[in-house]
């Protein structure tokens, strides 16, 4: 196996072409996937488990999972398809490897931020509250403009660092902090309105 650089150099193949390679069971499918999306997928992992080796293993597991799923699957949006596999694998890895450890993880930091607006309510059945909160979050996210929705997803779904979100959007970190704070408060109000939080 030749090590490859994760940053795309030169021309990259289209998603269609890469998927076709998977369908043809060509090994190059994996190298082309890594060439195009490796770096991006790596960030998903690194935000959750700050361990380079673990991240690379997760990345390899993602490619394996992709190889196993295509065919028969033909993903509509390849990037999203890869991201979901990657995130699930990384979360499983995090649960297995770090169940009892306090590890540096941006995900844990971002989840802690949500303590102010999202905690289990002991007086309600957990399954019920999870489903209700999920529904409320969706309504809330759909009410947001594109920029705020993007910030929320980056921070709490992908556990991106504040600085990285700021760099992507070309705004100051303070702006991202402020937006996140406002959104957490709004979310808290929405949960309270639904009786999901005290």
């Amino acid at each position: 196996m030749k090590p490859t650089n994760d940053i795309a150099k030169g021309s990259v193949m289209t998603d269609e072409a890469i998927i076709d390679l998977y369908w043809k069971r060509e090994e190059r499918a994996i190298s082309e996937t890594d060439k195009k999306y490796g770096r991006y997928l790596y960030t998903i992992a690194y935000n959750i488990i700050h361990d380079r080796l673990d991240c690379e293993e997760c990345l390899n597991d993602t490619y394996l999972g992709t190889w196993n799923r295509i065919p028969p699957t033909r993903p509509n949006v390849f990037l999203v398809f890869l991201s979901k596999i990657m995130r699930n694998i990384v979360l499983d890895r995090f649960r297995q490897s770090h169940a009892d450890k306090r590890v540096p993880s941006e995900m844990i930091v971002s989840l802690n931020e949500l303590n102010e607006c999202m905690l289990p309510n002991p007086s309600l059945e957990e399954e019920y509250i999870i489903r209700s909160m999920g529904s409320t979050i969706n309504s809330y996210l759909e009410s947001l403009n594109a920029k705020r929705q993007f910030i929320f997803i980056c921070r709490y779904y992908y556990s991106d660092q504040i600085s990285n979100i700021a760099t992507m959007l070309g705004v100051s970190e303070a702006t991202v902090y402020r937006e996140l704070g406002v959104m957490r408060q709004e979310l808290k109000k929405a949960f309270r309105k639904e009786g999901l939080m005290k």
Partner: protein
Amino acid sequence: MKRSDEFKLKVLSLIKPEIIDRNSKKRYELMMRASRPKRNRKWMIPSTIAAVLLLAVLGVWLFGSGNGLKQVPIYQGMSVSSTLPNTSASVDEHYLLLGEQQGGQPQDDEISGDHKDGHENPDSDKPFGDEPPIEEEVKSSLEVVGGARSIFYAQPNQTVYITVHINNPDAFEILSFTLNGVKYTSYMFKEGSDLENLILEVNVGAVEGIQEYTIDAIKYVDGTEIKDVRMDGDRTVRVGVATDKQPTASVANESIGFNDISFDVVLDDPLSLINQSGGRVYAVLYDGETILETVEVWDGRLNTVRFKELKTNTLYQYAIVADYDSLSGNGRELITLYKKAFYTNAIVLFDAVTVSQEGLSFGYAWHENASDKQISLLSLWKDGAKISDLSASATSVSGLLSGHTYTLIASYWNDDKTEQISITFTTQAKTAPTVSVTNPTKTQTSIGFGISVTDPDQLCTLTKIELVHANGTVEADSLDVRAFENLLSNNDYTVKITYTYDLNDGKGLQTANKTLVIKTKAKVAPVVSLSINNVTETSISYSYTLTDVDSVLATLIVRLLDADGNVIATATDTAGAFEGLTASRKYTVVVEYTFDLNDGVGVRMLTKSISTATVKILSITAQVPVINAGASVTIQIKIEDIPNVTLQSVMIDGKEVSLTKTALYYYATFSPKSTGGKYTVILGTMSFDGGSVPMNYVSDLDILVMGEISVDSVVLSNGTHYYWSGEDVTAYVNFIGSEPFTITKVYIESGYVNAKSEILIRKVTDVQYALESIPTDPFRITGFVYEYNGKTYEVTTNQIDVLFIEIPKQTSPIEISTPEQLQNMQPGRDYILTQDIDMSGFDWTPFQYYGVLNGNGYTIRNLTLDGVTSMFKNSGSNCYIVNLNLENVLLSVYVPEAVPNFYVAILSTYDDEKGKNNGPTVANCHITGSIELVLEVNDSEEVADVISLFAFSRYGLITDSSFNGSMNLTVKKTFQGGYYVFGMVSTSSISYGQLVSGEIDLTITAGDKVLKKTLTSLHETTSSWEMGAEATEYYTVVGDCVYVTQGVKTMHRNCLPDSWSNINFTKVVIPKTVKAVGWDTFSTDSTLTIVYYEGSEAEWKNVAIGGNNDALSNATMYFYSESRPTTAGNY
């Protein structure tokens, strides 16, 4: 990971995929744009995959090297999709069949513990309360054994696409293949197929479960040979058709012991889903904390399961779970097929437990194998402490607190040791009574109420009924009281009910009360309405009305106060008068009354007062006591002065009339009835110190109004206004009037002298008076004097214009019967028509005539006056035309150029100004016909001063005559400057309207302007101004000097600025083009003082100056001069 973080992740995992998708793409784009440090990472492909790939590549290479040139096609496998491969919607559609949410209702049992009812049917869904359900524990303790098989999920009868993948680098033509024994050839491949991907459309059919598609015998063409493709890939693909025919499990022969349970598992898997997916079946035992034991049920047939070493009298749950692919799209997973909770057997259980408010009854259910045992100890516990030991044989407990929780523990001997069972129970709570005060009633002095008690446990005892008021609290004599009497009106009273009860809850006797506020009805205060009915100079009449619905009045007195507030007199009657008062003084009438409303306030007092004054009327008279109908009467009122008192209104004949005040009098003017009569004057209100107070002073003053007395007509006894010389006629004045009267004088203005003089009369009848002599000049009756009721009154009457004409008696009149005879009449001779004369086609030439022409009642018809201005000309006052009819006369004149003045008249006009004031005398002459006058005027010319069209003559005396016809004046230029006069006869100092009648349809056409009207008056004047012309082109004004425009030929009064109203111009500059100055251009009241004429004095003398130009005549004249003039005359 903390539980709370896991919780959050679960919540976040529910974010909608489309939101994640959208933002993931955005994140990727932005991240790729951002410059970030690179990382070093290794990656690897699992060795198994790599080996497969390597072998495949190697195999191909080896095979390919065998023939040296071409590579045999190699079958590599099949894939299944729901849409045509390589299309945009290529995401696999997996079908997720969500199981229904199962959740047991929390058990709300007031008895818990070792009692038979609770052990018999434990809740199998959620037997352990809040502990995790067995399904969850199973998933965490059992792993899914074996990997997922590649399977495509579909719905029944769904069309799917199977793609056969072939490595075919040398592009051999693929001929056919066999799938599940059915041969498919190339033409059956779907669009999109190529030499390496053969797409086949397949319907999965209605059969649910797993379908397998196996490929075989793929043929390809190599030159002329048909060869087999090398089969290296998996030849079978699997399609899972979703189904609800899922495996089920049940148990049989269940047997529960003290320490074990056994049962037979009965599996039903109609589609063999468990077997086809390589699944397993287990029986598991759960105690609410962990899965205690797992037993695999091997082949789905009847299998006996037994769990041993269980605790006695303990709750467990077992389940039958299977690890298989349910074809719901989730792959293999653990699914619970059956579950049940149970208690292991007990030696003894409490049985028939019944809880009451104060106790418990119970029995025991002994296991059949323990019938020889018995309870040895029985004790009652509360809050962890023993309350009492009970008899071991007791089956009930009493005397407990209500709504409290107790534990009953029973001990028995088993195998030489003591064992216990217990139940915890809560006694039923007693219900607190509720009391309410109902049905409140009230009067002005009492209240009533009811008491309603709701007390299911009969705990309530009424102890007290009280009435609470601001003045204090009164307790009812008995608990049966439901009303209180003798109360104050309009007061709040609170009914307070006190009661006690004991809930047997350990808190002892409770006291409570219930209250209701009831307000007694209010009594109504009496109302007094006071009015002043009349005041005289020494009395004031009053009246009042009292409304006292609740009869609360105590006292009432009427007082009269003077201006200083001193009581002058008192009274109590509802109506009365205070007499003997001083005139012209202010007084106040006060009604003072007291009453008690029984509301605790005591006696109240109210007053009602009106101030007025005794008014001394000095006089009420009519300024003119007798008037004509239609005239108004002014009443003059004088009162003795009272400071600050002003009369405000007066009612006359039932109508309010406004008052006007002067220093001495008030005046009120009104229009009386036309027939006259008596009038009553009521002085209604007066202003008193700024306020309005009633007065109602009634005056009996009579105002007498006479009926109309006026002159009806003045006529000769022959019924006309003319008479022949020597004829015996009398002139009468006829009056009209409804009241008896006597005329004593008649006043006239005679002739052209506007002076009043008396004309002598004598009474003929009540309404007809004869003139002592017949006036020869026109005169006008202006007034008369009459007597009525011994008084005489002078009346200015409606003006009656009268003209009596004496016609000279004809001397040997010459008879006329032909047109020629008419044309040949000679002046100075008298003529009489003997028949009607038709003048059709006769070319009439006007001539001067004087004498008496008697038409004798005959008619001259169809006379045409073409190009002439009248029938006769220059006929003076000694020309008489009598008793003549002219029918269908046409006077038609065309004037080709501008003229200074122009007059036309049917009977007579003048050639010039001479004798113009001496027209003919016309009597009983009736004309029909028309006058047509056309004036041709160039743009540079102006029409002269006056254009006149008359029916009879320009001047003269005309009576008892009429004209009916039309007049048409056409002027070929809009602005002509002059006046137009139309009518029967020209203007005069006396009108003769009542003597000359008829209608004239008048049409004036001036340039593009047309004016139409109908005349019935004697004559009417209009001007080119009324026709819309503008005058400003005729002059300009600089300071006080008017410059007449160069080129104007004729000046007339409208060629100067507003000369009628005498604008203060003092100078006028007249150009040399002016040839005439029209009538009345510079009248006597003009302010003109200086005239500058741009010609010589000699030329000025050639300018025709019309009459009424005195200001022009009197002005200082300056004529044109080469040198600057120093004196008047030249400049």
